């Protein structure tokens, strides 16, 4: 008869914190469709407002470029797996959690762990481990 709780708690899915690796180039590429339009609109507006020739083009490029850069920096916050497309991420997470319910064959387990890592989630037993230790302590030293 086992005298202690099971030593291998079921793994839990915990959302990992998104990485702070802000890739500016990626942000600029993502915002390029809007950014390239913004540069054109600003250049046109500067010309209409009274700046002629090359000065209008340079001013438009500078102001439009800054606006694009700001967009690119802001977009980097939405490039992680859990934020780039929230609905798909949520759907994938739901499917992964459903998969955890039943027994997992060995061949699939390693693939599952790799998938979890790529999804930016960690299959940790930290919380249940703490809970387990608390329960063990409670069993050994029952409250009087």
């Amino acid at each position: 008869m086992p005298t202690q709780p099971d030593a291998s708690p079921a793994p839990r899915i915990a959302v990992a914190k998104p990485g702070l690796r802000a890739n500016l180039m990626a942000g600029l590429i993502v915002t390029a469709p809007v950014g390239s339009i913004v540069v054109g609109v600003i250049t046109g507006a500067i010309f209409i407002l009274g700046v002629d020739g090359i000065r209008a083009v340079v001013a438009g490029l500078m102001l439009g470029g800054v606006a694009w850069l700001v967009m690119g920096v802001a977009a980097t916050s939405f490039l992680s797996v859990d934020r780039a497309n929230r609905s798909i991420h949520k759907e994938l997470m739901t499917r992964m959690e459903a998969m955890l319910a039943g027994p997992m064959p060995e061949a699939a387990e390693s693939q599952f762990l790799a998938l979890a890592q790529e999804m930016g989630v960690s299959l940790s037993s930290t919380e249940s481990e703490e809970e387990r230790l608390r329960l063990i302590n409670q069993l050994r030293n029952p409250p009087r």
Partner: protein
Amino acid sequence: MNHSLEWALGYGYVRLWERLHRIEEEKLFAASPDELIAEAARDTLRLQGSNVDNRDQLLDQLQRAASVLAFNAGVSAGLVPAPPSAIAGLAPPFHPPDDVVARRMIRQVRHAINEYRDERRLALVRARNQLLRTIVLTALVTYQLIVLAVLAGAPRPAFTSAIAYLLIGAIVGLFNRLYLDASAETAVEDYGLAAARLLHTPLLCGLAALGGALMVPLLSAQITPTGEGSAATIAAPTLGAIFDISQRPFTLVLAAVFGLTPSALISRLQSEAEKYKSDLKNSEAPAAH
């Protein structure tokens, strides 16, 4: 490819779906007989509503496999009616190796369905990214047009008129989008394709309107030259005259009409996306886990 960019471009999610499906198939192979029979029934429903290649063969395969599993597990045959082909090809009593074969068959069918769905997802992502690339290139070429006009010293009223034509075309194009969107499927995730199309519409329709506003006066001057007899001269209107709303207010109507011309292209793009989405919806599991 940059790791972050992969998610933003959508390819990463398709890859994750593929990996998830491979795990699901492995898990299915090792599932208990009753679970396998239930999953086979579920896949039968998914196949029946879909356009998966070799659908009939896959359905037959599922029925054969389910019959073997049902017999070996002692499940009532009424749950999974065995087709005549199953009786002819796989007659009871079945043996343990038959069980493995049945499991493999069910896994193969699931793999075929998953692959079909993943291909549709990838097609949506590719279409979205291709459209975004087109937008970037079109916007950059349009910008060069603006730079050319600015550097050539185009008069401001002409520049303003050109922008007015472009905006009229963009508005008409977007209005047309409202009509097209009424029939769009919104329950299926399209990986941002609809948003890319929305961005694409004003740009394309605006440029078409601008082109129309420029071409029609020039062509009409070529078709109906001014003057008399053989000495007829072709007096094409100047660019300054064409891009002057006060002189030619009717050009606004022309711009509006030409703003609708890309609608055939836009609706074709939309119908292609709708087909992929409909394929995904039709091959969906009938009920959630």
